[in-house]
């Protein structure tokens, strides 16, 4: 058989498998995610692979218009509107210390207040990993990275959104006390 015919047969078989899987999903019992699993976003910032804890975010947005602001901070890309609120947008790659000139496409809204959006260049996907696959790290230090996770594509450092917020606050010149978590801040889920 010729390659196009093989490809058509493969597509037909895939279609049938998908349909069967979809149909079979209705027959499965209700299930829920286990507690010992973490939801991660695999991203790329400045050409490097990272992971974000989905629980530390409150939304993912592509291609949002960002209004630039004049200022001395190169990491501050500008402001964007989310749900009627003006949110500053920082370049995650700049915060991680390896800025690149091209503009990031994706924005992730950090959980907690004040509103903060981190911009990164590429979204690799959404993965769920067991908690044991994550090598935790102490919540101290000046950087944004807290821990590592082993994934099929390789081991990625995990960007801690809270630490990134602290870095942003330091850059913005706010007092450390001002950087205390807001009472309404969502607690980090495990």
């Amino acid at each position: 058989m010729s390659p196009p015919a093989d490809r058509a047969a493969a597509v037909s078989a895939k279609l049938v498998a998908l349909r069967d899987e979809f149909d079979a999903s209705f027959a499965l019992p209700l299930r829920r995610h286990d507690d010992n699993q973490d939801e991660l976003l695999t991203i790329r910032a400045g050409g490097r692979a990272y992971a974000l804890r989905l629980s530390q975010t409150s939304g993912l947005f592509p291609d949002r218009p960002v209004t630039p602001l004049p200022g001395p901070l190169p990491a501050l890309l500008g402001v964007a509107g989310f749900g009627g609120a003006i949110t500053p947008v920082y370049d995650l790659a700049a915060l991680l210390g390896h800025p690149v000139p091209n503009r990031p496409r994706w924005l992730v809204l950090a959980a907690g207040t004040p509103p903060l959006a981190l911009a990164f260049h590429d979204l690799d996907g959404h993965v769920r990993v067991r908690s044991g696959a994550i090598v935790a790290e102490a919540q101290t230090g000046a950087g944004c990275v807290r821990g590592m996770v082993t994934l099929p594509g390789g081991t990625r450092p995990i960007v801690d959104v809270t630490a990134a917020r602290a870095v942003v606050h330091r850059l913005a010149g706010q007092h450390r006390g001002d950087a205390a978590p807001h009472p309404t801040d969502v607690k980090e889920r495990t």
Partner: protein
Amino acid sequence: MMARRTFGTKLAGGFGLTVVLTLLMGAASVAALNVAVHTKDKVISTATQGVTGAHRLATLAERRIGDYRAYLLNGSQQYLDLTNADRAQFLQEVAGLRTVLTDPTALALLDRAAAAEAEHAAALAPVIERRKTLTSLRNIAELNAAAVGPKRQQLEQAIAALVARTRTDVEAARKASSRTATQAIVVVCVLGVLAIASAALIAVRLSRGLRREVGAAVGHIQSSSAQLEAAAAQQASGGRDQASAMNEITTTISELLITSRQIADSAGRVSKIAEETLDAAQGGDATIDQTRQSIAAIRTQVDQIVQHMLALGEKSQQIGGIADLVSELAEQTNILAINATIEASGAGEWGRRFAVVAEEIRKLADRTAGSAKEIRALIEDVRGAVNTTVMATEIGAKAVDAGARQFDDATNSFRRIVQLVATTNESTREIELSTKQQTTAVEQVNVAASDTARVTRETEVSAVQTRQTASHLSSLSGELLDLVGTGRR
């Protein structure tokens, strides 16, 4: 200049010179004879007229003496008349002699004779008168004629002196004329000797020239005869070689004749083939037109294929756009699923169930995105294939155009071939005709070569004869050299 003159000219010159000398000698002889005759005539005339006149004077004086003596004797008037007549005749003779004589001495003697006669007449006259009166001879003494006698003697002496003088003159003139004649004889003899000497000299010179020039010429003739003999021998051998060569030529020409006829036959066959080729070429012209139409149809089909392929590419582009749309939708679904998961994580137990659904949605979105990506890749493949096909088709179209142009060239070439075939046909016919003419010409050449061979044999024979003639001429030259006295060289 003499060397360049021919021997005939020299001979004519020598003879001419001899003739001139002979004529000169003859003229001189004639002149000498003329002079001698003239002087002798003069001598004779002097002798006849002078001496005879003198003698006649003596005779006339004697006759008058006799007559007047007769008168004195008989007193007859007749004798007196005769006496007077004699005197008149004497005087007339004296006058005649005066014109004849040239010698002054003789003339003086004549004058003296005339004077003596006059004195004699004067002495006689009274005597005669007295006689007239006398009637008888008894009285003779009365005549008193004593004075006449001395006068008569003086007259006779004077006449005798004149006669003697004229005789002396005649003798002197005879001697003078004899001398003149002798001088003329000497002159004639000298001229004759000169003529003989010059003739001998000319004869000697001519003989020497004859020996020298004729000898040299005959020597040349002899050497030329030898050369001619050698050349004739060479010509004879050359004639033999030429005769054998001519035989070979005749044989070759016969073979050439056969070949020429074969060429004529071949040319005829080629002409037929050329005519058939021309017919086939004219039939091929229609095939060319059909092929041209087929090529035009192929070109149209190729254009349509290109249009269809371009339309296919455009449709593929549209499908790609739709696939992009699906991909975009899948991405948005994925984002929504992620956001739903985020929202669900804060919604407690129900949120966890919803998270499962959101994950399923996200998986579907991932699969959709993967399928859209595959579609996109397939569309890219299709577009690449379309582009490749369009390029190949355009290359094919260009190839078809090039083929059409080449076919046009080929058509032009073919038509030129048709024209050339027609020209070849005509040329072949001309070749056939020319070859036939050539065959005829070769036949004529064959005849001419046979004639030439015959002539060559005759030439050989004549060369042999020439050699013999040259040999004979050589011997004749030797004999001629002997004749002219040069001798054989």
